[in-house]
């Protein structure tokens, strides 16, 4: 398992993932990649993927099959990078990009959890729709809505610059100081550390609110007011 996985390197890019394969036989590489994906489906689901295939020579059938395999797993293949002119041509034929702008060093940082300090935040400039789940070992900031059926699990705070109507768990590893705030606050379910509350009744007048564990140890949401 580890042996095959080590053939594959995965990096986070600004707008997706870059997976680099080696020159080992294509069949092996392909099955290693797919088993890697199948082992962590939620990590890959919905991802935009660029694939660096080193000097592999790939034909149309190979790339079509690859793209189908990936799309069945909810992964969108948009670029294939190769040193082989044949593979480059194949990729162009299929409308795939063959170059990606060189990622700057700080963007290539692995998504490895250990590297992230406590004060790291994940910033997402989009609405989280039903079925999306964000798990992050720091704070999460959303510029957009969190729709019913979407979930955020953060070890730190959760800030939603938009409407919060999904599920949020802040302080997920037990931090009782964590807060959750949103411009419009009507989560389907809210948790901070071990405290949970069921749906907060939808706000009639939508004021920004902030939720925290109060001095009595209860989850409480109140209107935000400038201190």
């Amino acid at each position, binding site marked *: 398992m580890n042996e095959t996985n080590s053939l594959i390197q995965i990096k986070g890019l600004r707008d997706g993932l870059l997976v680099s394969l080696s020159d080992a036989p294509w069949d092996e590489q392909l099955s290693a990649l797919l088993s890697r994906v199948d082992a962590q489906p939620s990590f890959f689901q*919905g*991802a*935009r993927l660029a694939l660096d295939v080193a000097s592999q020579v790939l034909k149309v059938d190979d790339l*079509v099959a690859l*793209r*189908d395999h990936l*799309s*069945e797993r*909810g992964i*969108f293949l*948009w670029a294939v990078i190769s040193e082989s002119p044949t593979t480059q041509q194949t990729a162009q034929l299929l409308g795939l990009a063959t170059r990606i702008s060189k990622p700057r060093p700080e963007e290539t940082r692995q998504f490895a959890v250990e590297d992230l300090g406590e004060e790291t935040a994940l910033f997402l400039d*989009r*609405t*989280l*729709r*039903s*079925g*999306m789940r964000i798990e992050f070992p720091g704070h999460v900031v959303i510029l957009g*809505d969190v*729709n*019913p*059926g979407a979930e955020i699990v953060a070890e730190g705070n959760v800030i939603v610059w938009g409407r919060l*109507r999904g599920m949020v768990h802040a302080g997920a590893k037990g931090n009782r100081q964590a807060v959750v705030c949103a411009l419009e606050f009507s989560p389907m379910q809210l948790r901070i550390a071990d405290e949970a509350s069921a749906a907060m009744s939808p706000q009639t007048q939508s004021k920004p609110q902030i939720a925290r564990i109060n001095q009595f140890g209860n989850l409480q949401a109140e209107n935000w007011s400038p201190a």
Partner: protein
Amino acid sequence: MTAQVITVTSGKGGVGKTTAVANLAVALASNGSRVVCIDGDIGLRNLDVILGLENRIVYDIVDVIEGRCRLKQAMIKDKRLPNLHLIPAAQTRDKNAVSASDMTRLTKDLRAECDFILIDSPAGIERGFKNAIAPADRVLVVTNPEVSAVRDADRVIGILEAEDKGPGALIINRLNPSLVRRQEMLSADDVLDLLAIELIGIVPEDEGVLIGSNRGAPVALDPKSKAGEAFRNIARRLKGEEVPFLDLESGSSLWERIQKLAGRR
């Protein structure tokens, strides 16, 4: 000119995808466009029934893909509208007979020959759905004014965004204005508020839809039908015309909402 490929999908089953494809197809074809419908719901075909073409099927999409017939042989011509064709789904074969690249290849061959290719997607977000959206230039998401349907539509929109298919345009089907007025049904406003994508049509609940489907004569062919008019309007919007929305919920602020949504982009 090369055809635009439009896929109709929903997430939740039974919300009116097939109905929408059949009605948009006849509405577009009545207006002179050359239309090919593809039934992408392998194993559960029914677009042919709604279009009234069921008993003319010889070959189906899987026959084309597996090379048992030429594309032209599988295209059934509508007797009423000679510029409307259907490529039926296979009834018996398993779903894995078709892949995303098969769909892309098939539509590529058709693009030069028509103006619109309409693909009826199966419910869900599995392989059949992925196949149906793979070749799409534009996706129409159908929902009903109902919490679970809207939730699934939201999910589908999220996937479309992730796959770079744009957020899609929304059809709200089976809206019942009197239930909305009594606040027993989500309003178009409520649905748009959550999904926040472009609205391309609102179709009222109308028993004529079912009757038309059973007769193989989609309501868009009936000049007196309200639902038919709604579908004809969507067809005109697909052609780029600006058509005002039918006033189904008088007193609602729908127009403001639409304006606001348009401004957001």
